[in-house]
């Protein structure tokens, strides 16, 4: 149903080409390597979705973590769950064939804007409003799904914990759109987002509309968590925003480096996690997070070693010179 609705609109056609192309590439890779997990089409999509998550989650997470906003991802994931429930409910009642991930994106973005507006009115992001939004989202989700359950058998686990095998072409296509929007917006506004993240008052003085960039940031966060929910599940999705970023902060000296390192760590966690969960028959979301946390611990150790060695070799100053970086942005 869902696919016909969107295919008729023609919106998803080019995205299906991308999926086909990717699938062809994965099959080729399977022929070359003989890796069993590359032989199924659902795994092709799951890997693609995973790789996208590995880029966009730490990218957005970097801007959140350094503003002590790490938990906003969790709150938005739970409202995303309400959005999923709304989608399932609407489908059951009106037979519209709307992808629940699409309604999840919409509901989570509205919730994001709502959190932001509350914080603007009260001049602070506060735990209480975040907790209220989080539990309201989850309560709404469970309520709607329990009503729904009578008419339609719905597996909630797939949304709560994520599932590699249920990544449909539709939801993979939605993710590709989210991915493009997120990369595009962050690419365009990276200067502004960095300034607002690092020093909000100075950014405001320099003429930036801090409110607008905050709104953009929370909306992007909503997109990331819903996109990543398919594999990671509602409950664990926020970890991908936080853990790789925290790991990267341990070993990075510059902001650009920390962005790059967090993406590398996230991709490592995603690929290893998907492989382990495929061969070990475990839930991907859980394994990915465990791998990410393992990498984080290694990063902490590496960071400590780096500092210890650094203090030994550079007793005071002067050893770091201008040669390392010339005109990189």
């Amino acid at each position, binding site marked *: 149903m869902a696919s016909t609705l969107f295919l008729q609109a023609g919106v998803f056609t080019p995205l299906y080409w991308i999926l086909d192309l990717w699938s062809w590439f994965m099959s080729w890779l399977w022929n070359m390597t003989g890796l069993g997990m590359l032989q199924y089409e659902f795994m092709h999509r799951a890997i693609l979705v995973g790789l996208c998550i590995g880029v966009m989650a730490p990218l957005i997470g970097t801007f959140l973590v*350094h*503003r002590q906003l790490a938990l906003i991802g969790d709150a938005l994931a739970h409202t995303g769950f309400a959005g999923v429930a709304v989608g399932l409910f609407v489908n059951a009642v009106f037979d519209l064939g709307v992808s629940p991930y699409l309604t999840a994106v919409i509901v989570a973005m509205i919730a994001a804007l709502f959190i932001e507006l509350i914080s603007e009115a009260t001049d602070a992001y506060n735990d209480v409003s975040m907790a209220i939004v989080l539990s309201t989202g989850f309560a709404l989700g469970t309520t709607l799904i329990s009503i729904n359950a009578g008419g339609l058998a719905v597996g909630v686990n797939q949304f709560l914990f994520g599932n590699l095998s249920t990544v449909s072409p539709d939801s993979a296509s939605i993710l590709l759109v989210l991915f493009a929007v997120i990369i595009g917006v962050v690419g*365009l*506004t990276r*200067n*502004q987002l*960095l*300034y607002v*993240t*690092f*020093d909000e*008052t*100075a950014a*405001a*003085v*320099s*003429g*930036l509309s801090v409110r607008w960039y905050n709104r953009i940031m929370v909306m992007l966060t909503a997109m990331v968590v819903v996109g990543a929910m398919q594999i990671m599940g509602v409950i664990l999705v926020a970890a991908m925003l936080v853990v790789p970023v925290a790991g*990267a*902060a341990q070993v*990075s*000296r*510059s*902001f*650009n*480096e*920390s962005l790059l390192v967090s993406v590398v760590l996230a991709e490592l966690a995603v690929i290893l996690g998907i492989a382990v969960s495929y061969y070990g028959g475990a839930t991907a979301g859980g394994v990915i997070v465990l791998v990410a946390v393992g990498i984080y611990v290694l990063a902490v150790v590496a960071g400590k070693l780096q500092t210890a060695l650094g203090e030994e070799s550079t007793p005071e*100053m*002067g050893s*770091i*010179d*201008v040669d*390392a*970086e010339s*005109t990189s*942005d």
Partner: protein
Amino acid sequence: MSTPLAREADSRADDNAVIELAGVDFGYTATPVVKDISLNIVPGEYAAVVGPNGSGKSTLMKLMLGLLRPDEGAARLFGEPSHEFDDGSRIGYVAQHASASKEMPITVREVVKMGRFPHVGFGRLSEGDWKIVDRALETVGMTAFANRPVTQLSGGQRQRAFIARALASEADLLVLDEPTVGVDIESVEAFYDLLDSLNREGITVLLIEHDLSAVTEHADRVVCLNREIYFDGPTEEFVESDALARAFGTTVNFLGGD
């Protein structure tokens, strides 16, 4: 607009003022935080705002910079209403060093680079922009620290990096909100020497400060605030006046700060 102070007359006369407040009242709630503030900062001045904790210093600064809008009266920046002023590159802002994100991995050069953001907008920094960044680093004596993470700097070094950011944006007004809180004493001296030399080069300096010895030593003009202006004039006159005691509501010597 009934200001009892005679100062009001010449406030309005000056069209060149960098900052202009006329009869400004402001309160976050019904209780005013600052009342009936009129003052002008002219180009090239080195002015300091002093006052006890909770006297409205930071609020006054926000009003000046257009981050807050007055309930009464008018605030102007470079001749435009402050909240409409949009050439942020002309203002360099340095906060208390504790305020910026402490854990974030970011190098000195990346911080100073932000000074160019008002100029480049959504674009990339050109080679010329990078040259300006490097010159700013040189001016504040931080070239050797350019690729060092800000987290590894001392308080004084960090504040120099923020000054460099202001210089990179080619600001002609430098606003500093208690910049030396938590900075060690030797660095403080060097920091104020840097401000002096920038001021001599024509940059207008507005210092919000609780450290009165620094103020009397370096600033040309003192504005003493405790919700209202108790004194506004040359530093030498301030030292001899009783404004400080009246503003702080006691007669003790406040050179120790708060």
